[in-house]
């Protein structure tokens, strides 16, 4: 009988018990183990004192570079600030405000790098007047020779007109001023919107601008 009982006992052993015995965990240990399992602390206590951080002049330089980079990026145009919050009560005027507070990109992207859908009309383009400035005269007058001819013509006509009535010329002059202003706007826009802002040199800008003014005035006086 004793043999049989022994066999029975051996059979009744569950596999978990065998594993735990094999691993050296006693009967009572399993219960105590399951009871103590709890989520870890956010800041578990350090068992050992950690090694001190490596510090040298090179490390200090790296830190300086790191902080400089961070500060530069924070102040750069690439750092996009959240818009100022609008009031909860919607007002009619808000529609216009929102439109105006849109910040544009402060840098000129090379659009080859980006997918086409990211390219949006800037508000400067959107604000451009519908009426296109008269470009015919400007386009024709590219060479200096034609310009000189026109100036000569102008002088002749001026000599003829001096004795004519003064009032009409004054009116004409006013109109002309307006036109020139509008067209100057156009000239500025034309050069501002140029593809790459870095291309137009600082010294080149004003000279072109002046020559345009001369040409334009010439054209309008002609007309």
């Amino acid at each position, binding site marked *: 009988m004793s043999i049989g009982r022994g066999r029975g006992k051996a059979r009744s052993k569950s*596999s978990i018990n*065998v*594993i735990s015995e*094999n*691993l*050296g965990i006693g009967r009572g240990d399993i219960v105590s183990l399951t009871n103590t399992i709890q989520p870890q602390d956010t800041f578990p206590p350090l*068992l*050992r004192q*950690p*090694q001190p*951080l*490596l*510090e040298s002049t*090179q*490390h200090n*330089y*790296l*830190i300086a*570079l*790191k*902080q400089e*980079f*961070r500060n*530069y*990026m*924070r102040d*750069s145009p*690439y*750092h*996009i*600030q*959240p*818009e100022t919050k609008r009031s909860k009560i919607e007002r009619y005027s808000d529609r216009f405000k929102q439109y105006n507070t*849109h*910040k544009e*990109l402060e840098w000129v*992207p*090379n*659009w*080859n*790098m*980006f*997918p*086409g*859908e*990211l390219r*949006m009309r800037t508000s400067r383009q959107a604000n451009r007047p519908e009426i296109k400035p008269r470009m015919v005269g400007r386009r024709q007058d590219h060479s200096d020779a034609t310009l000189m001819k026109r100036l000569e013509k102008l002088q002749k006509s001026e000599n003829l007109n001096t004795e004519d009535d003064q009032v009409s010329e004054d009116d004409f002059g006013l109109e002309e001023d307006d036109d020139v202003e509008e067209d100057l706007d156009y000239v500025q826009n034309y050069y501002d919107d140029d*593809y*790459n802002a*870095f*291309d137009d040199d600082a010294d080149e800008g004003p000279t072109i601008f002046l020559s345009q003014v001369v040409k334009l005035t010439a054209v309008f006086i002609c007309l």
Partner: protein
Amino acid sequence: MTTGVHQLVVSLVDDLFGPICAKTVSTILQNNQITMKEIIQHTGFDRRTANQCLCVLIKHRFVRYEESGEKIRTVRYSVDISQSLSLPFYPLFVNIVKQQHGDVAEVVLEELLHQGSSFKDSLLEICLVRLQSSIKDKHTVNMETLNSIFEVLVSRGYVEKTEEATEDGEPPTKKSRSSGGVMWRVNTHTFYTFMRDTQIVEFIKNRFDEGAGEVVSVILLLNNQIDGDMSQCSSSASYDQILHGLKNKSPNMVPFAKSYLDILTDSDLGIVKLVDDYGGGSFLINFSNFYLEFAKHHICSIVRERFGPKSHRIFSIVLAKRMIEQKQVAELALIPYKDAKELLYTLYTQNFIEIQELHRTPDFSPLRTFYLFHVPIEKLTSKLLNVCYKAIYNLMSIRKDNLNENSRLVDKSLRADASTLAATQQGIAPEDLEDMLTSSEKQQLGSCMRIVKRLDLGEINILDSICALTHFGNNQNVH
């Protein structure tokens, strides 16, 4: 990739480009690949803001895009995680260039990192302005020197053309001409390769001695593999070439070259290998073996610092024997069986060690099963890498909290600095000015800045481990 990495990427973007870009990035990360419409839907930004964010992020290579579809083109955006994670390394890159090519090259690289990607002309113009305003001897720096330095950086592979320019293969098109040339960016792979080479030399110096390190550095100099940090081996260098290189570098090492090479090839590290026998032999460096050894070295030191010397002993035995039973571990480690078991199980619960079951009989009875302990190196490396990223994230968030708490003081000190600068430019001596900050405020600000500096130092200290573990992981993925 895991949430830890995602958190870090979002935090890095937040640091540089502000909360709006950070939100965009986190949305893209959650959805993997995503269209503009979905971005707007998830973030709630208007079209213009989303456009601006994406422009900035694409320019700095945090986000890339793919266009698909024939008639209706859809653009899908995804986050370039590996590129984003190289951001903490930027100071190291700048420092490498400074040490190799001097201060002017440093400024060029730094500006290129600021811009993300840029035209050469506009970049050099910015550099010129910056150099002329900072350096005392202005006349030494002009456009020509900048140009030549830029060319040097390109030839060393630190700066490369952007993909758009290189992949097209038709440079003189109308499109590229109107854009004013090619865009340039920093090639992070070259820097990683350089860092790897320094690590190899350091490793060999620590294992053997200075001379062995010199020999290895000569072999690395002769390496002309083009695929950078992805290659498995260096190109082979003959004995003569090595001798010649040593003559130039450190002539007093020449007589010992042969014996150093013998020692290196005989060692069981397998980092330096003999490939040919004729003419004194040719040698190469096996990077895969180095990555493995270096990763092991890092993991072992982590175990030692975290679990103590006894655990370290047990861990290195398991690592060396590959598969081992716990009784043998206790015997080899010369630690009492009960203690050894406890240490082993601690390592097991922390996932540093795994158990492989080997059944002797087909009934899977635990009595007739071997329980073999082993170290899952690949798994462990990626786990530790994530721990490192998490650590950087934690350091960054503590820093941000710290600065947020003291934001009023920081702003005030900035204003004070600006006003003193303006006053000194007007000719007022700084001593005559009133202090805008009180002494207690100064103290508080000082302690805040000390903490920030300490946290930054922590971030920089982690980078070595990240570099080692990433190299190992990448190498495993490739092969």
